[in-house]
């Protein structure tokens, strides 16, 4: 047998690398001393270092010294204390829906895993059985993995709803509403709970109210992606306003939560799919089906990260510590936004830069076009996504001048 003829995989094509990780790779390989990484979405301190939250360090010590803890399997749906406290974070302690016993949750592998579970469930049971033709709407633009998550779950018709207005560098609300009015009934909409990725532009409360009204009227399905609660404004409650409003308007909905950013637990894959159902009976049946989906995907979720979050959320003292840590991160981002805008204005960089401080969360859509981005990367060694998205966390008091100058050059030299 000639091995060369035996391969079943000789036809497997080389896939393109995932852009955001390739960017980091290129950054890592770059030798330029003043290089700046404004690509991947992870928090950095003012020394440009990853930050393990002090509360997380505290809790990890607690775990390591607790001899009662072992490494046994978690239940299929995850650690119960984690699931309930995580849902409370999203919906509020006093949520009527929780009191009515119609809120449940599935512990998942990060926000991605929560979206995946939700998508799989919807594909099987929403709008009929296995109705892969139900349109799924994601914002234009959106996190680049949204499309793949729903496509891989089997949905055949993934569309975008108008969101970012490049000209005015803000929300195209009329376009958004228009899409809500004209889309097929029962379409699924993926909404960013706060700190929209990648634009940093969120609807106002009034706009959310109109969105909710239209979605209710047109029987559209609400699927929230909440990856930055607390991280956006520094306040957990403020950042959860939209999710809670929709719950109060009686939507049956899903909310994918990530604790990667607000707990800095990126690599422990801590996520939660909160399910808000009509009543306890529906919830019970939904969760039983979720178990079946979990079982064939990862059987049961990883324990470490969920433990850290559960212990933190369930201890008043540690919970306060955590909120402080979150505010520290949010405040640094807000400071960098203010400083970047001020420097660009001081440089007299053409264009308006109000959007830098009007936008919220980790990311900013600078408005730089692909050619200008290429200039930034190649000539200035400032790494950002082709979309013009920058991670504000990559900015520090030490590199902000260099970045501001680089943006100035890109905008003035490259059209």
């Amino acid at each position, binding site marked *: *047998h000639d*091995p*060369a003829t*035996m*391969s*079943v*995989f000789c*036809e*497997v*094509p*080389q*896939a393109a690398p*995932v852009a955001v*990780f390739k960017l980091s790779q290129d950054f890592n390989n770059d030798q330029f001393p003043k290089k700046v990484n404004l690509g991947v979405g*992870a928090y950095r301190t003012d020394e440009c270092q*990853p*930050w*393990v939250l002090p509360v*997380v360090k505290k809790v990890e*010590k607690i775990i*390591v010294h607790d001899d009662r803890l*072992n*490494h*046994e*399997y978690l239940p*299929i749906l995850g650690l119960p204390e984690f699931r309930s406290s995580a849902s409370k974070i999203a919906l509020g302690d006093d949520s009527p829906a929780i009191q009515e016993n119609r809120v449940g949750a599935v512990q998942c*592998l*990060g926000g*991605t*895993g929560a979206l*995946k579970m939700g998508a799989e469930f919807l594909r099987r*049971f929403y709008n009929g059985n296995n109705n892969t033709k139900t349109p799924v709407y994601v914002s234009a633009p959106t996190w680049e*993995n949204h499309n*793949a*998550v729903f496509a*891989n779950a089997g949905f055949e018709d993934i569309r975008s709803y108008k969101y970012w207005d490049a000209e005015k560098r803000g929300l195209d609300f009329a376009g958004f509403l228009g899409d809500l009015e004209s889309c097929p009934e029962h379409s699924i909409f993926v909404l960013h709970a706060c700190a929209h990725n990648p634009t940093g532009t969120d609807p106002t409360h009034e706009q959310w109210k109109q969105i909710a009204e239209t979605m209710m009227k047109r*029987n559209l399905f609400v699927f929230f992606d909440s990856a930055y609660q607390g991280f956006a404004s520094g306040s957990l409650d403020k950042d959860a306003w939209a999710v809670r409003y929709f719950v109060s308007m009686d939507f049956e909905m899903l909310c994918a939560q990530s604790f*990667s950013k607000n707990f800095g637990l*990126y*690599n*422990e*894959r801590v996520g939660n799919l909160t399910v808000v*159902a*009509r*009543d306890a009976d*529906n919830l019970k*049946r939904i969760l*039983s*089906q979720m178990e*079946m989906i979990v*079982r*064939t*995907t*990862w*059987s*049961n979720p*990883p*324990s*470490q*990260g969920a433990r850290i979050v559960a212990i933190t959320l369930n201890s008043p003292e540690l919970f306060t510590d955590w909120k402080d840590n979150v505010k520290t991160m949010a405040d640094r981002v807000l400071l960098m936004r203010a400083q970047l805008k001020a420097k660009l204005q001081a440089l007299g960089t053409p264009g308006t830069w109000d959007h830098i401080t009007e936008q919220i969360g980790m990311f900013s859509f600078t408005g730089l076009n692909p050619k200008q981005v290429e200039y930034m990367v190649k000539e200035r060694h400032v790494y950002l996504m082709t979309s013009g998205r920058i991670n504000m966390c990559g900015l520090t008091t030490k590199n902000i001048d260099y970045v501001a100058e680089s943006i100035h050059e890109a905008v003035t030299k490259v059209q």
Partner: protein
Amino acid sequence: DFINRSQDELLTLFSVFHVIHITIHLTWCFCSSWWGGVQMGPPDPILGVSEAYKRDTNPKKMNLGVGAYRDDQGKPFVLSCVRKAEAVITAKQMDKEYLAIGGLGEFTKSCAQLALGNDNEVLKSGRNITVQTISGTGSLRIGANFLSRFHGPRDVYLPKPSWGNHTPIFRDAGMQLKAYRYYDPSTCGFDFKGALDDISKIPEQSVIMLHACAHNPTGVDPRPEQWKEISDIVKKRNLLVFFDMAYQGFASGDIDRDAWAVRYFIEQGHNILLSQSFAKNMGLYGERVGGFTVVCNDAEEAKRVESQLKILIRPIYSNPPMNGARIAATILNTPDLRSLWLEEVHGMANRIIKMREELVAGLKKEGSTHNWQHVTDQIGMFCFTGLKPEQVERLTKEFSVYMTKDGRISMAGVTSGNVGYLANGIHAVTK
């Protein structure tokens, strides 16, 4: 005329009611739920066993359903090497940045070395791709998705019986399942002739799943000579081999011996797929540590396959969890932790083997005239006792011994303290 008018009136009445009915129905739907049609999922049979066990108040109750190791006091066992590794890791104060999609490099490298042997030519030539996965299930799922995308539409052949979750995993990934004979209920052993016969008829290029060691649920493994013949016939039929190795080290106590079949097949030229789990052999169950390997023709092909695996993984969970992989890598790559681990895994396997021997001895002592040799012939965590459903039911009802209906017991739930009781119970229901 009267009849016609009545018919017209009736029709009108019906139409009106119909419209009212639909209106009410629609309104009801609006205030009702999207999920009215969602059925209650079937209860997990194994979980069901555990739940029933929990409810039982009999002090002598035994849980022989669970597939997790227990020490001789019936308690979960956290390996010392794991605790030591955790201490080392905590002291390093590492960050929590995202892992690469394919996982922790030190883990995937040592994971492949563990399975294939450090000096394996496959590793030297770089013609394998090994990615970190969410334990064994996650590994099988990624493999199934990969096959579905790049090797479809071909069927997957499972041994009869196989781990209950194999079927839904492959099915969910879009593959069809078939079976080849494996377990012989008349001998409680390996149906070698039946297996060879069935395998010889499998359509070319189909996928054949093989349990590397400690077959789940039967505990029945082929002998080396039998593996050789299986390899030959699989080669003849040009089948794609997918090994599931969830018990390396845990079966015989020797990691190389347990990996023998995997290494033999590679030597024989099979470019295999391999799923590994560290749930049992390192006791890292809830940390979800596993690996998925594709042995390719060459390093170039491995790169292409790797790129596609990343594309599959990203929309499921983006990148894998760090904690367990870091523990496993630390153990495998730190000489004295690795030695300690080998001792401890040997210890776990030995305890199981000893319980098998004591069970057989106990049954003899009880006066059982049945042949219980299969209990010691079988290997690994599980034992297919040969008990029939009615006997299992009696064992549960009368003795509070909990196990699955197919007669499978988890030897891990047997201790020196309760093996006599178990022998007594089994004898009572089989005499």
